[in-house]
Structures are given as C-alpha cells and as structure tokens.
C-alpha cells in the first residue's frame, strides 16, 4: 500500500493538482484541509505519513500549523509548498519543523523527488 498524504492548501486548484501528481505516483491522498487549523485537526485524526502544506492560508497559516503538528509529533513529515520569493517564510517553516519544501509553480518530478526524500 502506498504512503498516505494529507494535502493542505486554501485553493482547490492547488489541492487538486497536488493530489493528482501524488495519486499518479501511487500515493494515497486520505484528506484535504483548507486552513491551518483544519490541517492540525485532520493530522490528529488521520495520522498521515506525509503532509503537503501551503504557507499562506487563512485561520492559522502553514508555519503555525507545522509548529502545532510537530509539537504533537516531532517526527511528522511535512513538505512545505511555497511560492518564489518566500525564502524567509520557508526558513521559518523549516525551523518550525518542516522536513522539505517545493516551490510553485510545481513540476511533478520535483514534487515527487521531494516527497521521496521526506519519506526516505
């Protein structure tokens, strides 16, 4: 069975795209969240193997969500999805516990490389 993934992004477009890339590679998307708070809650419920996390989301941003998630589970594998020019935010996210990041616009191969690295 493939690894389970929780996809967090406030844009349906992005969620769909990430889910498609991952599903095509054999991963199982078991949940989606559109806010940071939802992400934290769903992480607790679903215990996914991997989380993809947008940085800027309403109602608790991605960085705070990472912090919350990693507080519960320091080994949580969170992959940040960032836009160009968000270096400072990504650095902060890594310090908060994110394990890797990908930069939008996504190239499927890059996303999958990062996912494989994180799931190691």
């Amino acid at each position, binding site marked *: 069975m493939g690894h389970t993934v929780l996809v967090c992004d406030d844009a349906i477009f992005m969620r769909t795209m990430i889910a498609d890339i991952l599903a095509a590679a054999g991963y199982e998307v078991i949940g989606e969240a559109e806010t940071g*708070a939802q992400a*934290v*809650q769903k992480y*607790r419920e679903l215990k996914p193997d991997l989380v993809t996390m947008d940085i800027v989301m309403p109602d608790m941003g991605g960085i*705070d969500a990472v*912090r*919350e998630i990693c507080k519960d589970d320091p080994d949580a594998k969170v992959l940040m999805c*960032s836009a*160009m*020019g*968000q*270096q*400072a935010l*990504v*650095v*902060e996210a*890594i*310090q908060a516990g994110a*394990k*890797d*990041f990908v*930069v939008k616009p996504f190239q499927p191969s890059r996303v999958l*490389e*990062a996912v494989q*690295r994180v799931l*190691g």
Partner: protein
Amino acid sequence: MDLAKYAALFVSESREHLQSCNQLLLAWERDPEATAPVDGLFRAVHSLKGMAATMGFTPLAELAHRAENLLDAVRGGKLAVKPEHFELLFRSVDELEDGVARATTGKGLRPEAASLVKALDAAVRISEKPAEPARSGKAGKPGKTGESAAKLEKAEKAEKAAAKDERPSLDVKITVRSDALLRGARALLALRKAEALGVVSRVTPQVSELEREDFDGKLAFRVKTAAAPSEVDAVIRSAGDIAGVAIDLASDEQTVDATALRQIRIDLARLDALMKLAGELVVARNRLVELARGSTDPELGQLGERISRLVGSVQSEVLEARLTPVREVFDRFPRVVRDLARDLGRQVRLEVEGGDIELDRAVLDEVADPLVHLVRNAIDHGIEPPRDRVKAGKPAEGRLRLSASRERNSVAIRVADDGRGIDRSKILAKAKAEGLVDAAAEFLADDQLLRILSRSGFSTAAVISGVSGRGVGVDVVMTRIRQLGGAVELVSEPGQGTAFVLRVPLTLAIVRSLLVQVGSERYVVPLNYVSETIEFSATPVTALGDREALVIREQPAPTVHLYRLLSVEGAATTGRRPVLVVQVGERRSALVVDALLGQQEIVVEPFDAPRGMPGWFSGATILADGAPALILDAAALV
C-alpha cells in the same frame, strides 16, 4: 565523569545567563512588541536548562524548562504577553538564581518554587486552549506533563552526550546547486540533516542570513559526530539540490580560531594569590634596592635594577588581569531600579554611562554594596512620587544617572538623581539636637552634610521603610569606601537632586605613596591624593574661620599639623617644614610634616584598627626596611 569540577563553571556561566535574562526581561518589558529579547531569553533559559540537567540538578532544569515553555509560547505567537507574565518571568529568574546557588550545596529549590512552576504551567496552558479546542482540559493536562517530561529527558540526554563528547569534529562546506529554488532554505535543510548526526557549531553564514535572496549557496559549519565522512556526505546530500560537499577533519580548534581573542576562566582566588605574591615581591624588591644602594658591587646594583623592572612588569600584568569593567556591577541596577521603583510607586529612568571603565576586581566587589545603598536612597528619599514631581513642575518620570569616569589613578563613580534634594533644615535641626553642630549654625555646607549623614545610625527618615531609612546608609557607604582608600563626595540642591561621588583607587593591593616623617614616626600618604608639596614658612599663613590656613595657589587650605593630630612627641614645631597638599575632590588641606622620605610602592595589608584609635588611618604596610607603618586616610584629613 566527575561533575564536581564543573560546578564552579556551571555557577559562573549560569549567573551570566541569568544576568542577561534580567537585562533582556527589562528590555522586553519596555517594548513588549520586540522579538529580540524573547529570543535571547529563550536561548539563555534553554542553555541554563541544559547545563542544570547535565549537572544532574533536575528541579532546577525542570523550573528552567517551565519558564522556557512560557517563552516558547510567546515566541511562537500562541500567547500574547501580559504584565503578569513579566512578573512570572522575573520571579523565575530570581528563583533560578537562588536555585543555582542552592544546587551547588546539594539543595533543591526553595519550597516557594513549586507555586511558581504551577503558575508557569497555568500560563502556558491558557495559550494552548484555542489551538486545541477538541481536547478537554482534563484530558490535556496529564498528556502535557508527560510530554514535557519526555522532552526534558531528551534534552538532558542530548546535553549529557554533548558534554562528554569525544567524537571527532568535521569541518563541512556545502554548495547548493545554482539552479535550485530558494537556495537558503535548501541550505538550512542540509544543516538540519547535519544536526541529526551530531552537534553542529560555527555555522557561516548565520541562519538568519539564509533568509536573504542574495544568499550565494555556500554554507560552512562544524559538526561533532561519530558518523564517517562518507555518511555525513550522504546525509547532507539527502537534503536535495546539493551541488557539492567538502568534509575535512577539523584541525586543532585553537589554531582555527587564531584570530579570535583566546580566553580562559580563572578562579578569582588564584588571581588574589598571584596578586599577594606580586605584592610580596614588591616589598622584597624594595629591600633589595635599598641593600644594593649601600653596596659597592656594581653587579648587585645592575641585578637590583633588572629585578626591579621585572617585578614592575609582573605587577602591572597581574593588575591588568584583575581589571574588570564596572559594567559587571552596573548591569545589576536596571533590575534593582525597576523593582524598587515599582515597590515604592516611583517612575524612574535609569541612565548608565561609563560601563567600560575598568577597576580591580576586588575594588569593584567592595563598591557594589555601597552603590546599592546609594541607588536605594536615591529612589526612596530622592526621587519624589510622580504626583509630587508634576506638582513641582518636573516630569513625572525621575532620572537616575549612574556613571563612571577615570581620574588619574582613581575612578569616580557617580550616583545622581533629579529628586527633591536632601532636606538640610531637617538634618540641621536633628544635628543640633544631637549636638553635632553649633547651636547657632544656620546652614550646612555639602561636606558638613555628608559628615553628619555618615555618622553611624543617623537617619531622619520618619518611617523606616523596608528599603532604606534604617540609618544604615551613608555611614556604611562612607566606611566601605574609606577602607578602600577612597573618598565620598556629596552635592545636593533642594528641588534639583542629589549626587554622590565615590572615588576609589584603581587597585587595592599596591599603592604609590609618599613616606613622611613626623618626630620619630613614619607615615605613608597615598600619592593619589597628594596634589603638590610646598614649604611651610614660604607660604603665607592666614585663617579660615577659626582654623589656621595656608594660601596655596591663591586659595586658603586649612593646615593639619600631623604631630598635633597624632600626638607625636619630639616633632619639629617651628621653622621651615615640608607641607603636603592633600586634595580629595574639591577639598584640600595642608599637611605639615617634619620631612619627606621619598616615594615608595607599598602593599596594603589588612588592618583592624584597635578600638579607640582615631580614624585617621586607612591601613598599614611593611616598609622597604621591614618596619611597619600606618597609611594616612587622605579623605579623613581634608
């Protein structure tokens, strides 16, 4: 590992951290929006926790951990900081300070610490509620405690491992691919990977620089790890987008840091011992030089000179090593002032200047308490409550200035407030009642005022507060500073404020002095306070009030005939005699002696004046010929 030998280091380093905690807390309290103090506090408390855990001082580590949790909650934006949090943190720092001292004597925290731990936990728990709506308080609590204990255990283990780390150090240089996106973030990932392998240090550029868009993709650091270089290489490359990794076994740490100032910590007792030996060496040298002078052997003379120079160098090196910036003492005051101002309902802005001025460690230690007295007095009696200040047309916030400046061979430390000034009429009335001044006196000059205030037990405070006003203030200050061979000065203006100046010698141990003769006795006068020497009969004699005085540089200075003052028999009482002009601050007097015997460097010996001995002496010494002599207290003579 024998932990006992690290105890001293633990204490001194912990104190440094806690000192900085106080500073940071004050800065933070002034500007609750600032993030730098919070981060600094977090790091300091975290370091302390690690050290305490390594030393096995579990309750101390636990308390630090709770404080760290609170800081972390604020830092993470989960908790908006409130005044009560500052109070909690200040209390924590105090408790930690106390705990550090107790821990080394094998004691745990004071019982009061338990309530503090509870309060800290409660503050943190509030911050967690909104983030965990699903979790009830009841279910959340045991989970939280268990988790923090587990975290603490983990941190403890890591610190323990680092302390006895004998793994090799590797210097690592990595380059992030030039086409990689967000290269700084990528470099940070590589760093995180390395951190999983061991203890990482010397990261260049700093992590904060990785956030910059112009980061050039090159990162260097050192990692202490048991992993083989090939393994380190593989782990770092697993961060992705890494173009190259260069790993070298670290060369000797010290040669790497050759440009940095190398420092070691020395127990102060060692320096004291060294100082004492240097002092004895000076006395021995003085005798040798005297002997050589009486000898006809030219080689002995040359050797004497050579040894003389060498001893001089040893002495100045030791003195240099003992110099400590006054900041070490000044740094306590922001906290002291804050607490006092709060307790007494005052608004006080503290201004500190001259923290870089250096003093002998021993002098500095002696000055600390008197300064605390003066600062307390200034806030308690000097600076008025805000309402009174506004009524008097002054800003509600009082100003307290603490400054140090170098003056020849002494350092002047000033404590000045812009408060109400000393109430001279009240002091005058009380002084008259106690018979300290003439009943007809109408005014007290600053020096009279100081003399009266420094009488043991003299206080006019109507109410004895917990802060000052017990009548142990100025007299304690005066006694301590005099014992150092220093002097105290006072300037007070009604409504404008009060300033105390403490003049202390740079060092205690070795004093350049003038040796004088009166009758058959010899006395020592520290050169610090001798502004010039003149001849008695060549100078016009006049009167200053009812005292004999000499006109020196167009100003009268009262004479002090040492033979009379010290009841010395057989002294010259007439004719041409040398006079030392002794000056302390603005005050001068003309000291009439029989003969000047020359300069000598003397080593001040501890001196317990016998009861009933007049207070003209500040210490004793052994002269070059081995005979003892008393050191005159310049401040008492002017």
